[in-house]
């Protein structure tokens, strides 16, 4: 198979698979939450309720796509597009398996991911601003503070891996884990990345931007129909992306015995997706000041410590060379 055909196939298939997974996650999340709450969850539409996301999408499409007259119209329309675009763009750098990936040996892959996840914050902030609604605005403000501060630790938590491998390319990071996955030496980094990932995708328990109890639905209060659906899918696409990065950076990506690389990658990613859902099922939402305090007073020093210690060990063992 020629290189061009491979690339075109990857470009077509990977974003579609990620989007399908994101839609499927709606079903998976509801079923898993139901299992942990001793219920069944959606099990009526199709086998095991698998067609539930399709039914949801059809329902959303038939709803009135209403833009409030007081909203800032262009920004209002643009905001959901941003979250979707950044989610799909991040798929480009995922090294799924040898030969499967769009630009997975991009030499700034990790930076590209961080850039895209920061861009994702704009979506929420702009949605909150453009809705011209006080609850949306408050949700947008919270999410701006939350995402920008957790962005810092997310970047810093990954620096340990970068120091150990000396590269930003995700494919090379995976290759460097042949001798042992990075979650052992970089355990602290992994935990911080997990928490920052939760906060970045504003998943439970860090879903303060859309805390129903106090902010109605937060930034997407005014959104209806498929615009709301895009926010929804965008959030799940973020979960898929963060889970696959977890796999790539700390759990050896596609590496693993017996099974084909693609299967290993998908298995590991699914594991982290399920972990995200389990965290949602378990933990209560912290207060907003607790969230910020945890970020700046605990996670930031820990992330810095991780970078310093990793750097010092690297310096001591290799004498400064990479």
């Amino acid at each position, binding site marked *: 198979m020629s290189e061009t055909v491979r690339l075109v196939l990857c470009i077509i298939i990977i974003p579609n698979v990620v989007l399908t997974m994101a839609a499927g996650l709606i079903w998976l999340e509801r079923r898993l939450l139901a*299992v*942990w*709450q*001793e*219920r*069944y969850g959606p099990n009526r539409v199709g086998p095991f309720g698998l067609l539930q996301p399709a039914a949801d999408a059809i329902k959303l499409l038939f709803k009135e796509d209403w833009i409030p007259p007081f909203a800032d119209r262009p920004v209002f329309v643009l905001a959901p597009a941003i979250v979707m675009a950044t989610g799909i763009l991040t798929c480009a750098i995922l090294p799924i398996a040898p030969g499967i990936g769009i630009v997975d040996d991009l030499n700034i892959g990790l930076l590209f991911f961080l850039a895209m996840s920061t861009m994702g914050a704009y979506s929420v902030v702009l949605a909150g601003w453009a809705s011209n609604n006080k609850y949306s605005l408050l949700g947008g403000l919270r999410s701006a503070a939350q995402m920008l501060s957790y962005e810092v630790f997310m970047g810093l938590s990954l620096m340990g891996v970068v120091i150990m491998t000396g590269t930003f390319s995700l494919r090379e990071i995976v290759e460097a884990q042949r001798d042992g996955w990075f979650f052992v030496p970089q355990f602290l980094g992994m935990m911080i990345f997990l928490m920052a990932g939760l906060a970045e995708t504003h998943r439970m328990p860090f879903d303060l931007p859309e805390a129903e109890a106090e902010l109605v639905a937060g930034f997407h209060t005014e959104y209806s129909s498929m615009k709301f659906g895009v926010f929804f899918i965008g959030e799940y696409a973020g979960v898929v992306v963060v889970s696959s990065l977890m796999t790539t950076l700390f759990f050896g990506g596609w590496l693993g015995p017996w099974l084909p690389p693609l299967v290993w990658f998908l298995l590991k990613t699914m594991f982290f997706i399920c972990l995200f859902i*389990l*965290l949602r*099922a*378990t*933990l209560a939402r912290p207060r907003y000041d607790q969230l910020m305090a945890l970020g700046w007073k605990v996670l930031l020093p820990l992330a810095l410590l991780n970078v310093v210690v990793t750097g010092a060990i690297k310096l001591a063992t290799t004498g400064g060379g990479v």
Partner: protein
Amino acid sequence: MISILHSLWRVLRHTFDRRVTVQYPEERRVMAPRTRGRIVLTRDPDGGERCVGCYLCAVACPVDCIALQATEDETGRRSAEWFRINFSRCIFCGYCEEACPTYAIQLTPDIEIGEYYRHNLIYEKEHLMIDGPGKRPGYNYYRVAGLKIGGKDKGEAAGEVPPVDVRTLLP
């Protein structure tokens, strides 16, 4: 941190717990006999209507969903000329059943009375009337009421004695 891990484990353990959901249309719970569901009008064991049109159910109803018109036949026996329950208003509180002096109005365990049109929830007497005595088998109001009614004089029913002429008791 330890407590978070502990809670994660506790939640994860629920994976193997039995689910409490009853898969409704396929599985159905056995409803208790005294479940307050669809309201019926019952008959006495002889097949006559129990309802005597006393309006107590309509008075007791907190949402005013019961309407009726009493009538009396040539023998003096009272009954409902028409009887109407609006189930779109009914809250199934059972006060009508408690108020009824003749056990005529009763609530049944049937709870499946959903309809697509609201006016289909207005039940007339012919929809409410059932052929049996419901939860009170063997009870016949006119057999124990001591009332003079067509075909039965005072004191002729089971467990009754004929009225005493008090003048015969004078000293």
